[in-house]
């Protein structure tokens, strides 16, 4: 799968629990904890005038940290892309050993930035293999200081919905993702990355009804 369909949204931290309940009901799978240290590298001048970017993701949730290397390309452009409500872009990822980090340093890649994403994720199948993750994004005051990470925006978390795709089937995958996103409309507006959407004004009411045990007055 060399492409992915992706949409993003934001949600206030106070509503995250409600979103989890909603997702639990929609996806039918157990949630998985998410704790990923993401290191983003940009190539140095010795590797070419045009710098390239590559990301290393370390899953800290497992007893043994697992590393993944990921390259994210530019989004599809054009009239066709504009009609699709999700962003379709090239994405290649692969599992690597922990030596990847040293290798990239040795190759001359510079660490551009690093993030720690903490939250939860749901992975399920609905026409396409969809992954929804809700996480708080943390930055580190010192390089690699994962334990000292602080949230970039304490009151807000990011919601990522992604699904891998191939050049042949991306339109179906995009349709599956966007129809799934409708279910999340009461709590979060989802859109292509880089496009601001704001929060859902009625999210509080929706969250309250999700959190309550029936939505009616107590008898």
């Amino acid at each position, binding site marked *: 799968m060399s492409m992915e369909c992706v949409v993003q949204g934001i949600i206030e931290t106070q509503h995250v629990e409600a979103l989890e309940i909603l997702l639990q009901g929609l996806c039918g799978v157990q949630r998985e904890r998410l704790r990923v240290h993401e290191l983003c590298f940009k190539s140095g001048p010795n590797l070419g005038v045009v710098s390239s970017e590559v990301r290393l993701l370390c899953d800290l949730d497992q007893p043994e940290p697992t590393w993944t290397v990921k390259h994210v390309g530019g989004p599809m452009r054009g009239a066709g892309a504009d009609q699709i409500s999700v962003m379709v872009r090239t994405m290649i990822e692969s599992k690597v050993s922990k030596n990847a980090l040293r290798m990239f340093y040795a190759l001359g890649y510079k660490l551009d930035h690093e993030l720690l994403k903490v939250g939860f994720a749901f992975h399920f199948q609905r026409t396409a293999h969809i992954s929804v993750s809700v996480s708080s994004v943390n930055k580190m005051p010192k390089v690699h200081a994962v334990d000292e990470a602080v949230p970039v925006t304490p009151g807000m978390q*990011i919601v990522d919905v992604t699904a891998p795709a191939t050049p042949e089937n991306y339109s179906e995958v995009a349709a599956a993702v966007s129809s799934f996103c409708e279910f999340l409309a009461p709590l979060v507006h989802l859109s292509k990355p880089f496009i601001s959407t704001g*929060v859902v004004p009625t999210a509080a009411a929706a969250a309250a009804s999700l959190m309550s045990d029936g*939505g009616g007055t107590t008898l």
Partner: protein
Amino acid sequence: METQPQQPPPPPVAEKLNPKLEKELNLESLKTRAVSLAKAIARILEDFDAYGRTNTTPKWQDILGQYSMVNLELFNIVEEVKRVSNAFVVLPKNVNAMNAAILPVMLSSKLLPEMETDDNAKREQLLQGVQSLPIPMQIERLKARMDMIAAACENAERVLADTRKAYGFGTRQGPSMLPTMDKGQAAKIQEQEKMLRDAVNDGKGTQLPPDQRQITTALPPHLADVLIINDAGKIALPGQSNNINNQGMMQVSGTQFVGRSAASPSGPNFDNTTSPLPYSNSPRATGMVNVPSPQHQIQQQQFQQQQQRSKLMQLPQHQQQQLLAQQQQQLRQSSMQGLGQSQIPALHDMHGQAQQKFQTSHGQHQMPYSQPMGAHQQFQARQLSGGHIQHSMSQGQLNPAMNRHLNQFSGGANSALFTSAQGSPSSQMIPNMSSMQSQTLVPRMQQFGVSGTNPQRSHSSQMLGDQMFNTSGMMQTQQTQIQQSQQQQQQQQQQQGGYGNMQTNQQSLQPNNMMQNAQQRHQNPQ
């Protein structure tokens, strides 16, 4: 149990509810409502059954709507019953062991102790100010208080109504209205959103300023065994014995030189490796100097104090590099770029042309070479057209014998070579590489400066056949220069392709070459 507060208890014979109460209760309607409620619930459950069986997804809107209706109906029924339940008291019919103990408590009309204290406290509070006065005055005072409270309530109601009207709320809207977010709040949210999205997608706002890029001393566990921080607080990379450079930030910059440093053995190291090129068309033989790439030069300067003896020792250039260090540095960037556009064709003639003048015909390369030219007059310019440059300069493979040639090659030439060689390790290269690799694996290995002692010169510009150059002419060059041991004059184009891949094998310059390759390659297609 039928009792009515007002009337005396009727004779217990006919157990019929008092008609008035009965009317109030409206049992009939209650019954119908309860029954219909039960039916609605049953229907919903059936729907769910059907969903489960057919595995369709339920429409949540509808289901939620039904739920709320059922809920409302239940609530109403219970309210109704509550209304009239005051008239009833629940008594156990029979006294038996279970309820014997609690029965008197239930039946007593005295308040429970807690309730009693509660009551007293409230009474205290109420009559605080007026206890002392005679009763009628107390009553008056209390009445006055009540009036005041009533007036306050009225005012509050009025204000609420006014605000509702002002905001356009209906009189019965209440919480179902969209909560309006004032501008300030909306702006704050938008700002936060931008920050968050940028951080996730671009990393904006999470990058540390250069002066703060100290690696934390306590590495998290998943990095602790991956990165080694050496004394200076930088990440130690393979091949680096000590600080490579003192750039404050992550040792990435240091890492860039890893290859180089590794490749550049200390001066005396590779003396024993060089041997004059036996090939007639090797650049060496012709007195061409493999000018180390500018990168090497830079490296050199930095590592000069280092006694790095990596296995990539094949970079004998380090001596050369020292010579050309200055020029190379400057030229590096420019040459890189220049080379990007250089054409390959010239490469072909490289071979066999011992004294090829440095071709400055390629304007792009001119700049890079010009400087060194000045410096080194003896520069026998091989045809250092972009592609060729590579040939002339194998980065690490200048053996001492070539030193004399060093002067001849300007740093620019090197850089040109390297840049051309760099190209991008595009996939095109790769296939080439693999094809090539298969051919002369063994010799290739040698070429690639596997052993520090055999500086390999990649000369065979012939190798840089068109095949090699798919997109970037430069691509080939790198390969040729680098690894070609003197024996290999044969087109080592294969090597070139391999640069991208070779890196792993070759310890020598390879990394340098590759990087340049990469650079070049990128340039070309773009």
